């Protein structure tokens, strides 16, 4: 529909400013603005890409010069790597399951029935971003019961809290783009139970939100150092920092790969799932 496309065009302020007649001298500010934006994005991209490239180069460089991919094959056999990977994977799975089980029903319910509680949720889920991890890790160890303190799964329990900001924001945005109330009422009036409604109607519509929340949780578990270190468990980040390997380049390489893998997976998810974004644009 023409009116829809119109909306998309207007969303770009530089177009609104476009003066009439291509020959008009007023065209200049638009050009300058485009250049300015390009320059900003290039400098920013450089700041984010160059260190990454440097890390890659450092870890794949032969002492004699030139590059080799042998460090990649050495990762698996590096002492301690396998057990660190296994621990981090376990923690990631547990954290994801628990945080989803806790947050999905709660956030849906709040959207439907307790809109006033959204404010509270928003504040609560901001706290983990700013709480000093070093202080928090000690607080957790001091207050946890003995049996839990000796368990590696204590980390998963704590990571659930740390993942909340990202999971909440993802779900909140996903639900905001849906007309949850109407969907639920329609499903309920057709005779579906609550659980059925969540599972068959809401979760499929939240697919993109849930997937990006999972990937962010994964990234968190594979990147968190402070608490794991204080708690003395050798997860991947702790291993990267502490492990005595013959070749320190391998550690950097693992760090690079972890970052690259999460970024690629997340970008794939958002670019493959086009339906979701189109829906949200139309409803906006």
């Amino acid at each position, binding site marked *: *529909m*023409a*009116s829809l*496309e*119109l909306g998309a065009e*207007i969303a770009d302020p530089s177009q609104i400013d476009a003066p*009439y*007649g291509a020959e*008009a001298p*007023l065209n200049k500010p638009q050009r300058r603005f485009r250049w300015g934006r390009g320059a900003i994005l290039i400098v920013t991209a450089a700041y984010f890409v160059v260190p990454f490239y440097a890390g890659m180069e450092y870890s794949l460089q032969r002492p004699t010069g030139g590059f080799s991919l042998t460090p990649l094959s050495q990762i698996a056999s590096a002492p301690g790597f396998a057990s660190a990977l296994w621990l981090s994977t376990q923690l990631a799975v547990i954290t994801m399951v628990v945080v989803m089980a806790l947050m999905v029903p709660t956030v849906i319910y709040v959207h439907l029935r307790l809109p006033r509680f959204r404010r509270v949720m928003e504040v609560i889920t901001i706290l983990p971003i700013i709480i000093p991890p070093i202080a928090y890790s000690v607080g957790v160890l001091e207050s946890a019961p003995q049996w839990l303190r000796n368990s590696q799964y204590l980390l998963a329990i704590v990571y659930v809290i740390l993942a909340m900001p990202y999971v909440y924001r993802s779900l909140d945005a996903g639900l905001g783009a849906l007309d949850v109330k109407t969907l639920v009422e329609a499903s309920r009036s057709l005779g579906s139970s609550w659980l059925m409604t969540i599972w068959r109607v809401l979760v499929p519509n939240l697919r993109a939100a849930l997937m990006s929340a999972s990937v962010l949780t994964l990234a968190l578990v594979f990147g968190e150092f402070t608490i794991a270190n204080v708690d003395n468990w050798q997860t991947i980040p702790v291993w990267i920092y502490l492990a005595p390997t013959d070749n320190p380049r391998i550690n950097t390489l693992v760090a690079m790969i972890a970052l690259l893998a999460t970024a690629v997976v997340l970008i794939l998810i958002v670019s493959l799932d086009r339906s979701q974004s189109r829906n949200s644009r139309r409803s906006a």
Partner: protein
Amino acid sequence: MTSVTDVSTPVGADVHTLSGAPVVFDNLTRRFGATTALDRFSLNIAPGELVALLGPSGCGKTTALRVLAGFERPDSGRILVDEKDVSTVAAQHRNMGMVFQSYSLFPNMNARDNVAFGLHIRHQRSSQRRAKAAELLDLVGLGEHVSKYPHQLSGGQQQRVALARALAIEPRVLLLDEPLSALDAKVRAELRDQIRAIQQRLAITTVFVTHDQEEAMSMADRVCVMSRGHLEQVATPAVLYSQPATPFVGQFVGVSSRISVTRRGDHVEILGREVKIRGDLSAVPTGELEALVRPEDLDVAVNPTGLGVITHRSFLGATTRVGVGVAGANLRADVRSSLADDLDVGTRVDVSVNARDVLVAASQPAS
């Protein structure tokens, strides 16, 4: 459709000052990729006139308004305001007041500052701005709400502030882009009358975009029906209703039944009666034809051996609308409610046409 008659006041007849400017859309074309939003669109608007652009979504009415406002650039064609070509003038220099569909008030300013914004831009003195803003807020009936912020105002109040803001700059043309569509029915009807009253009092040339035909018919001096980027018909509401120029207008404005007919010279035969073809005979297509008949142009009478059967009835107040199945077609006819008692569903009836002339169109597959 019932309120058509009350908008027959001649343009600007009872107004002393004529501040509005004439507006001409001259052969405008605007494409968005593959879709043509405006297709050689031309329209003349007289000073002080309120013209409604009416049509289904995607018909180009919003694009026409935005081209006039200066937010869209036409691919070809001109816009004349006050006989001057403004096609290359930037929106900010066109001096047109615009009211948007919704939520266009600046959220960081109260009602007064919103209304005074355009005057601020024009470097008017603060005291002058405040006085003018207060006066305009009075005009739209919000004199007591000058210091309220948009989020403290209802939807209807927000749109009235937006109207006052658009009027504050004493625009040459007032542009209304579906300003009532986000409001509920009661507020919409109130605001409709209020906008019309203010527009007539100030005699300001106004272009009003809507997809609601009742709104267009009740407010506008003339209604311009558009479809697929071009103008179908522009006429007063009464003419538009009684003499649609094209089959599209006949279908889109009001209710019509389509009846298969055969042509005999300048007449067609409908339900056993010869009726004159309306309009230009050379424009009548060849092949299968259908006549478009308004419900009030059909007479229904009980007859146990009649060809028609009542298929449904709905009470509309003074009239009752009945569906009549005749020869495979389902026609809609209006009957005075006091005479409709016998017309139960299943009753056999005679149907006849009582119009002087009818609009004829090429036959369409049943929809």
